[in-house]
């Protein structure tokens, strides 16, 4: 069940619309010549699986924890407060 999502929903920005300046950039891309349609090289900058670091848990310092809490927009009795979650 696919539902078409408009750019304002996709971007979580009220009233967002496509911009003329940006559309002109996209037109230039559509009209540009590409050498072929193969996208074989796309991942050459990606990190190889062998190079991935191990998962390690590093405990944050007390100072780091206190700053993280300070940044939360709303806190109540040690919990992050969020608005009513909607059900869809």
């Amino acid at each position: 069940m696919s539902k078409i999502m408009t750019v304002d929903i996709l971007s979580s920005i009220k009233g967002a619309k496509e911009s003329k300046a940006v559309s002109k950039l996209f037109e230039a891309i559509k009209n540009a010549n590409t050498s072929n349609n193969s996208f074989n090289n796309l991942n050459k900058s990606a990190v190889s699986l062998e190079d991935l670091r191990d998962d390690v848990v590093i405990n944050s310092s007390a100072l780091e924890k206190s700053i993280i809490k300070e940044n939360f927009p709303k806190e109540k009795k040690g919990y992050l407060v969020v608005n009513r979650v909607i059900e869809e």
Partner: protein
Amino acid sequence: MVSKEITCMSLIQEKLNALKENTHNTVNSLLDKMALELAERVDAKIESGAAIGLLEGIPFGIKDVYMVQGTYTTASSQLLKNYKSAYTATAIQKLLDAGAIPLVKENCDSFGHGSSSENTIFGAVKNAINPNLVGGGSSGGSAVNVAKDYTVFSIGGDTGGSIRQPAGYNNVYGLKPTYGRISRFGLMAYASSTDCVGPIAKSIEDIRIVVNVMSGRDIKDQTTYESKIITDGSIAKNQVKTVGYFKNFIESDAINPEIKEDFLNALERIREKGIQVKELDFFDSDTLVSTYYTLAMAETASNLSRLDGTNYGNRIEGENLKDTYSITRSENFSEETKRRIVGGNQVLSQGFSDEIYLKGLNLRDQIAANFENDFKEVDIILSPVTPNTPPKIGDSLKDPLAMYLSDAYTVGFSLGQLPTLTAPQGTSTGIQITAAKDNDEKVLQFANFLKDIL
């Protein structure tokens, strides 16, 4: 300082005062308490007779997109106006470990979204040479602080030209190193595949020292690699025999006639020194700018999706969670940031991604392949930094497309992930010196040579 003609405390205090009084809108926040404490330690060390390192006690600035534990890191945005860094970026930590003293979080375009440092809640950054003109962007505050001697060096961030263009507009050096040479950990992400950390300074020697300190593999940024130290000896004598330039950049109608003439004269001076100068073919400016912005917008739409007032940022309550997200983002993001997020979501959405985003990735591969071929023919590629001189404050905001096109000469090298330096010579907004990947040393070497002949 070592000869005790000046104390570190007095040097730092003098710079802090100059920053506080300056009218160029370069300061988002001063790190005065931290700076004075560190200065006191340096003075105590000198007093004890201990040797001090090259960067110890040297005052520097930090673009306000880097995490420094306990300091405000706003990205010049309303959304993160009160956000405090919980940790310190790797590149900045390395400078702190070397004894350099951070003075200021510097004004810039919000989230790096801009080429003029006008897209900021802290007021447009004014050019160091003519305050009626823009400071350039997005690292405008950093370039102006260096040009005005408020900082000895500043750390900017360059995604599509954000170090090189403001360096050019303010007549200082600015280096975008090879992608991956310096860790991006703790740099607020704009477009992760081209984001680079780099220094702005008044001398090649300062650039060399700072790059050496910040470089190296970092487990927290898996795109980093181990690079060789650049020694002063290795950049002292020019070994470049062939340079190339993109014919279409210079023959374009969009270039300012004076910049064109100055650039061609600079090439002539280089030829006179026995260096071969070759014309090269390259992609047209429209394709370069469109490819860069398409990919950068897609990446920034993804990177900024976490800024929703729940995970991060200044929350504005709505009727429910979704409403809260969207009001928070609508009210707190600037028009330019919203334009880029929407553009990014457009290209990533079904129906658009094949003909725009995937085509953009394909073009990027072709651009990189073009560079690989070029560097089989030449050692260095030279280019003007910008097609035009800095615009008046206010003009760029009126015409976003013109602002995007003003990045025509810088974005290609970003897509190629190449080391590129703005040197404040040759044209009124400088010359860009580019080498193949991981040849940052050659870039500095050629800059040393140009310094003496232009």
